């Protein structure tokens, strides 16, 4: 009854499913890396716990913690591999896991909204998530292969520098586009 009451059709199930998936994924990423080495176990478990806790906090409603979780889990994997030779394909899987983790947390937070999603929206989002995971895996594997072929940290640094430059350019482009959009439509209604 009333304007405030909106039938929640399956929204809570989606929210719970995505949250559970994100938490499980974070736990898997944390545990797999932590079990990879015994001499750095303290550091690895510390990063892993921070990653899982940050994911939990993010799922509780503070979206900003998502990125701390992603960074902590990525750092855990990096700490595991520091001083251990060349990069392996595991990095591509971890990258995929981190992207999927971020998307799942974001989806779970979106599902808290009182807006009811049609089934088609959910299906498209699942498909997109799958494609995103696949694309990330392919991209990561390609980069790992390229790094292996180059056989040295110099190539990795070069790649990092180029990507950094692209990233900076992208941010600058985005800022200018945003400004232009605001100048063109200052609070205009549709």
């Amino acid at each position, binding site marked *: 009854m*009333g*304007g*405030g009451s*909106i*039938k929640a*059709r399956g929204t809570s199930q989606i929210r719970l499913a995505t949250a559970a998936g994100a938490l499980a994924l974070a736990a898997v990423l944390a545990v797999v890396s932590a079990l990879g080495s015994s001499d750095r176990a303290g550091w690895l478990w510390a990063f892993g716990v921070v990653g899982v806790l940050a994911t939990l906090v993010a799922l509780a409603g503070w*979206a*900003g913690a*998502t*990125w701390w979780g992603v*960074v902590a889990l*990525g*750092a855990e994997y*990096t700490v595991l*591999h*520091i001083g251990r030779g060349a*990069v392996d394909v595991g*990095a*591509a899987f*971890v*990258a*995929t896991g*981190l*992207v999927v983790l*971020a998307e799942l947390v*974001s989806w779970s*937070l979106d599902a808290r*909204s*009182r*807006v*009811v*999603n*049609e089934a*088609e*929206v959910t299906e*498209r989002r699942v498909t*997109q998530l799958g494609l*995103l995971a696949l*694309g*990330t895996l392919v*991209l*990561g594997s390609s*980069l790992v292969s390229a*790094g292996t072929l180059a056989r040295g940290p110099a190539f*990795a*640094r070069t*790649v*990092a*520098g180029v*990507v*950094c430059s692209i*990233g900076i350019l*992208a941010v600058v482009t985005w800022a200018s*586009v*945003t400004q232009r*959009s605001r100048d063109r*439509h200052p609070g*205009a*209604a*549709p």
Partner: protein
Amino acid sequence: MIRHPSVKLAGFASVAAIFLVGALATGRPELVVMASPFVVILVAGLLTAEPPVWTTLSVDVERDRLVEGEAITLDVRIAAQADIERVEVVLPLPSGVAVEDGDPALAFHLPRGRSRTVTLRLRFPRWGVFELGDLYVRAHDRFDLFRYDGRLDARRPIRVFPRTETLRALVRPAQTQLSIGNQVARRVGSGIEFAGLRPFVPGDVVHSIDPKTTARRGSPWVREHHPERNTDAVLFLDTFSDVRTGSSTTVERAVRAAASIVSAYLERRDRVGLVSFGGVLRWLMPGMGIRQEYRIIEALLDTEVAVNYAWKGINVIPIRTLPPKALVLAVTPLLDERSVGALFDLRGRAFDVAVIDVSPVATEPPPSDDPVSLLAHRIWTMERETLHRDLRRVGMSVAEWRDGDNLQRAMWEVEASRRGGRLRYA
């Protein structure tokens, strides 16, 4: 449309930057691998992001005038030039509106050039004026890096008229007015209703002679008639207090009763006025016809309880609102001293006052295991009975109208007590 960067945009940029800076600092390519998807998504999202252009965006309401309890259909039509991954359409509804079918907050995919209609079925269980809010539209891009918020002015008042009850009999005023109407006057004059017979006196019209009586008596006798006249009725609506008694509140019931009574009196070509006596005083001069009916019902729709502690008497009511010989029909829960005092004052000024007590006494008695509540309930009902007796003692007729009762029964009760009262006070 206003573009807002989503939380993901800042998050992805931060993660990518941290990983890349970390890669440069530690010389580990794993971090580059981990940063790469975030960077790719960012770049792709920034390159493909563009604000949606709506080709259609409208809200259509089936009708904006209805009777309480009825339902209407509301259509939101939307179409865009480009494919939009996710569109959220939110229509805030006023409280008291029940959604029978559809979702007032819905997210869907909008393909390019295809129109989409979101249909809502809304039911209005209570009378009043309901204003729809603005329509909020939010579009998400493919990578969900930007959100575009728009708003459409969909504000439109929907007037829900109270459900009226068919009344077969009304309270007859003690005195009629001079204009012709449907009410049989008590005095004698030219009319249809037979009043009596009397001997012929010089000046009587010849065609009024009753041939049968004249033949029987042997001298001319004439027939007398009651003329049909109209009356003035002023509805005195007490809006000082509102109490819920089951499915509805006393004000809701009072307005329904008022609408029924107004319609019935106006159908009889009587003049009807309105005094809404409460925290805010409102009135309508007596008038007749369909326009007056709509005027009164529109005024009733705005009825609400406004909290006011100032003492108010009938001196605040404009004098022309209460014409002489008018019947003042009070519809009141008899809860506020100010309205009760006003009724006594009106009677003291020789107005013909009848009271329909919109009973605030709940149909369900208090729980029997709570003796204090039971005692309080008994004392309260006794106080109300005493008040009824006091009102009757000064010449007002009172009938209690409980939740779920027929209004006609209350009207008959008032009319019956008025007949008895007139005989007593004659």
